[in-house]
């Protein structure tokens, strides 16, 4: 269950209380439970389509 999302500086505690990545699931942890995290992480780990960098690049220009 240590397979938290890698490289996520935005998960670091900032203003509010620190996040509890695995706290809420403790009551019941069926076999599939970490599948949710895997599903999420599988997208996080995908290479970013160029369209996103294009859009981010344009943000500055628009101002």
């Amino acid at each position, binding site marked *: 269950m240590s397979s938290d999302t890698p490289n*996520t500086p935005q998960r670091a505690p900032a203003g509010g209380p620190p996040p509890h990545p695995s706290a809420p699931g403790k009551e019941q942890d069926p076999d599939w439970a970490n599948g*949710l995290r*895997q599903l999420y992480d599988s*997208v996080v780990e995908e290479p970013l389509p160029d369209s996103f960098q294009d859009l*981010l690049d344009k943000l500055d220009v628009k101002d």
Partner: protein
Amino acid sequence: MSDHERTAADKADFKRELTEVVPHLRAFARGLCGRADMADDLVQETLLKAWAAQERFQPGTSMRAWTFVILRNAYLTDMRRNRFRGEYDETVAERVLTAPAGQEEPIHLSDMHRALLTLPPERREALLLVGAGGFSYEEAATICDCAVGTIKSRVGRARAALNAMLADGNIPKRSIGDSAAHRAILQELDDVASGMGSSRS
């Protein structure tokens, strides 16, 4: 635009943080609306809205939580326009999640995704935030603008529903070569799950 004139450095910081959360926005959006292309459209919309509203972001707070609120609101608006109906994306990886004892077929990541998409949207998002995104109940409640107890209840119901589907092997199957029929099934399941259906149990 705002009283406080934002410096170039402020904007650069904001943009850097925004860039860092894009993969997370994509993951949340994919879980919410199922289809990768729609999810990415939603993320792009979110990025534009976030950029336009950047003076409302408080530096030092969670960019991920802040942008998730924007994405969620955009999603709900689109939902009301009936753009997303829990359509399933066939490109989800066929990764084996687990093979429960006494079950012939192992559970795949795509099974999980399909099962997730049958949940009513508010339960789906609650489970995504807590079970996949790693937010606390309190953070999820803030993102969804509801009480902590409501989030707990939604997560509990979502877990129970997924458990019934996954543990018992009662996962909605993809129809072979007929995505329209498949979507209809998912929609029916969604309706049933949200109390609108009649015949199916």
